[in-house]
């Protein structure tokens, strides 16, 4: 299936650059974000409205999985529109004003309001087709509908030195052009700040479904997990004033990764017709994740990234005159740089700790400033800040030990396990950034997986019954991080998970699974090389609870297991394609 969305982001750069006097402009060392206008010509074009998803069926009874047919879903118009809105929100956010062209009107959304005005610009329309045909249609539409209007408006603006006119004269000027072009003055005003148009297009999405049968209290229970992957291509056009046409400026790709939603059905095997809601949730999560990924790539371009300056220094904290209007997020990293004889040099980086409320911009502009904390390096008054493309999500990999010592099975003395070494994998995310809430700043939620081996053989009543034990841990934890400066951080964490010790039976005995819940509490120390790479060391105390021992053809027995101290070292890499985690992003 293909989904096409077109949006135009219009910036002030063209008009301002040509018209403003060089002597009055900031140079590259004091660059600041100028609010842009995004024009949305929203329509979703689809190559195919069908999302074909093969089903894998698994049963916990026999612990086997097998293919079980294919479900096909249709993306209807309502879902189309919702996905388009999601993609646009991720790519635009609050940092742009929005100008949406509808069939008989144009709606203008600024920070304060949304206004609908009648207009006679034909809306863009694309149903389904290949990327090439989509691109051709976009080119054709822009050159036929937007370029003539934009060209004439810009030329007239230059004549009138529009940027330097007093507000009253600007209004008169816009009103005159509006009469001439039959386009509302409000729309003309937004078009004045125009140069770039970006349209985005999603390639065919893949789906997959896993249905897992569980046995809970005798009734069959079915867990359904629906995953969708979406690939979005963002096509950026620039208006060339000389030729009066749009030319391609750049193309970027956003990948959603595997984006899932799940549900549970009790009693009867799930059927497709009752799973439309699940499909919609998975589809929307994929659209969100693809938009987030595309946005991180878009922000690599200086024309679409946030720039600011350090406007007040207070120890390791500082303030910059930007905030909600620029879509700053809690814990978002910003590089700090200075210009020297050798060009621009990065001197450090920082994170946003408090975001200025957009209301302050109107009521007390002097107080419209956000707080940052220096994380690494150095900074001084009026250094340059630049947004780092970021999702707040990291992939962890490392190694360490996990203590899990068996002491009793039923009432029999037992032994085995101990401190086992292994591989650690996981994902962690900055909740401050994900929720964009200061209360969650530097609170990290981690999903951990540990796979280890090398423990002592299991014995019962002094007799070795099982050998070659392996261990796995999977769980969630929350870490509170404190930055120490120079890239170092420390913190503490707590969490809960499940531990599974598995060992092979000796002399024909069935294999044994010793399972526990486990609380953990620990401390960590880390060093951030950059906003996107860090190393860490954790020391955690594990306390197993509710332990059981299971053997085939034997009743489940209670077990006594003791935990202990675990050590772990690893490295974390920032990931841009965040898949299902996108559903948490606010």
């Amino acid at each position: 299936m293909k989904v096409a969305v077109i949006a135009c982001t219009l910036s002030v750069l063209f008009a301002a650059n040509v018209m403003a006097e060089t002597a009055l402009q900031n140079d590259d060392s004091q660059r600041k974000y100028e609010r842009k206008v995004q024009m949305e010509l929203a329509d979703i074009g689809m190559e195919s409205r069908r999302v074909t998803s093969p089903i894998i069926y698994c049963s916990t009874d026999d612990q086997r999985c097998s293919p079980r047919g294919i479900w096909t879903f249709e993306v209807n118009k309502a879902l189309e529109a919702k996905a388009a809105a999601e993609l646009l929100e991720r790519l635009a956010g609050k940092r742009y004003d929005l100008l949406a062209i509808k069939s008989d009107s144009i709606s203008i959304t600024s920070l304060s309001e949304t206004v609908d005005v009648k207009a006679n610009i034909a809306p863009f329309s694309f149903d389904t087709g290949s990327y090439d045909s989509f691109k051709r249609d976009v080119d054709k539409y822009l050159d036929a509908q937007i370029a003539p209007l934009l060209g004439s408006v810009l030329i007239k603006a230059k004549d009138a030195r529009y940027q330097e006119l007093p507000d009253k004269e600007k209004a008169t000027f816009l009103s005159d052009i509006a009469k001439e072009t039959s386009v509302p003055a409000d729309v003309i005003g937004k078009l004045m700040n125009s140069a770039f148009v970006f349209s985005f297009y999603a390639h065919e999405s893949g789906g997959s479904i896993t249905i897992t049968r569980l046995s809970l209290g005798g009734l069959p229970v079915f867990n359904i997990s629906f995953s969708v992957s979406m690939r979005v291509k963002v096509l950026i056009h620039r208006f060339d004033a000389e030729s009066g046409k749009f030319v391609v400026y750049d193309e970027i790709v956003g990948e959603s990764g595997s984006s899932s939603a799940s549900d549970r059905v009790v009693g009867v095997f799930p059927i497709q017709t009752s799973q439309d809601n699940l499909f919609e949730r998975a589809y929307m999560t994929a659209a969100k994740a693809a938009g987030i990924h595309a946005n991180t790539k878009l922000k690599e371009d200086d024309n679409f990234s946030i720039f600011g300056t350090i406007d007040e220094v207070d120890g390791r904290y500082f303030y910059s005159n930007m905030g909600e209007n620029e879509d700053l997020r809690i814990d978002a990293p910003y590089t700090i740089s200075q210009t020297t004889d050798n060009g621009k040099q990065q001197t450090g980086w920082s994170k946003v700790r408090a975001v200025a409320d957009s209301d302050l911009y109107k009521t007390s502009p002097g107080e419209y400033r956000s707080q940052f904390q220096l994380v690494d390096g150095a900074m001084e008054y009026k250094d340059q800040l630049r947004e780092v493309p970021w999702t707040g999500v990291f992939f962890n990999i490392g190694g360490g030990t996990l203590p899990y010592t068996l002491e009793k099975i039923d009432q029999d003395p037992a032994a085995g396990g101990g401190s086992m070494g292994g591989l650690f994998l996981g994902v962690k995310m900055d909740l401050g950034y994900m929720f964009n809430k200061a209360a969650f700043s530097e609170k990290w939620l981690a999903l951990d997986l540990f796979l280890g081996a090398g423990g002592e053989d299991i014995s019962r009543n002094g007799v070795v019954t099982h050998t070659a034990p392996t261990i796995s841990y999977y769980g969630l934890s929350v870490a509170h991080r404190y930055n120490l400066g120079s890239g170092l951080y420390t913190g503490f964490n707590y969490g809960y998970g499940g531990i599974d010790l598995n060992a092979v039976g000796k002399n024909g005995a069935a294999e044994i699974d010793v399972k526990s819940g486990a609380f953990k509490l620990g401390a960590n120390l880390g060093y951030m090389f950059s906003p996107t790479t860090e190393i860490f060391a954790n020391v955690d105390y594990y306390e197993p609870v509710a332990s059981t021992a299971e053997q085939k053809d034997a009743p489940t027995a209670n077990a006594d297991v003791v935990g202990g101290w675990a050590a772990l070292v690893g490295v974390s890499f920032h990931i841009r394609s965040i898949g299902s985690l996108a559903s948490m992003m606010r």
Partner: protein
Amino acid sequence: MKNKRILLALMTASLIVGCSSAPKKVEPVDLRPKSHEVQEVESTSSTETMLRASGKGSTVEAALDDARKAAIWFLLNAGDKPMLKTAEERNNMARFEQELYGSYDRFIRFTSDLKSKKKVGESTVVEVLVRIDVQMLRDYLQDKQVISSTSDLVDQVGLPSISIVASDSSGNVDVAKNTVGEYLTDRSFEVNVVEQSGKLNDLIGKVAKLSGNVDPAYAWALESGSDVYIDVKSNTQLGEVSGVGTKKASVTAKAFETSTGRQLAATTGHSSERASSGYDSLIQEAANDVADKLISQIRKAWLEDAAKGKSFKVVVFTTESQGSQVDAAVYGALKSVASGTVKRLAAGKSTFQYQLKVKDVANAFDLMEKLNGKYRGPGELKREMESGTLLVLKAGSGDIEINVE
């Protein structure tokens, strides 16, 4: 013995006190700017000027202070129209530099956010836009007698009346004339933007021809009766920036003393290069620039000469038969009222021209009044025409025709 002890104690005490309170050599802090990199952006009004100034310091704040001082320094010492024009004025200023740069803030009306910041070694270099109250700065300098006050002279002789004319007749030049006119009016000059349309006074045409100046602009200036006239020309130019067609304009202006034709000032102003399809706004910008530069030159030249009296041109027509007697008699009369020498310009058998300076005379009418009792030649002196600093007379008896020889 006791006295000795007291004496010893006192000596010791004085030695301790003397050592501890030995005057420390305090190096005076040099408050003058380190940076002298300043670019004039525009005259934002007749009393304020906007500059883009660079400053250097160990911190951003220090560099910012330095930039603001540099802007003051520029207005005093550099650019097209430095306030300190002579070596004497610069010497006078040396005494007040520390005071001026120690309290320079009062002259600054606006400082922009940083336009640029750069680390050079251990120093920081910044650029800002600074708008300075030039009039206030000038008043300060006059108050400190760093530069001479022109107000007394202005009270005595007044500012010159100025006509603005154009040598070319392009549509753009009217915009330039009007803009320069507005600027000068705002600076208290009596200004006449000459329309240069309709029929020129016949006699003025003949006088202008007699002077050997065939420029019609000069004739229009003569007719307007101004003390000074400014001849304005405009030029336009096409360009291209980043593939976008641009235009720019320049305006050249020369100021002359109307009576003598002496050039008082000359300068050229430029607009920025802009993407614009019309020239009006660009001409305005260039004309504002030129007026700002021109005004200080005119003022300076005019007031320097004002102390010696006001210049007049006197043209006398007579008959060939009375020519030599009239010439001698008029020359004698003029010498008796002139504050300096009387120059005899090109003369014929029946037409004579003189140039002189006269104190305490406001215009040609007053000059005529003064001359009336002084003429000792044949017949009488009759005023044929007077216009500002131009006085045209008939002298002698009988029918006198006005013919240019």
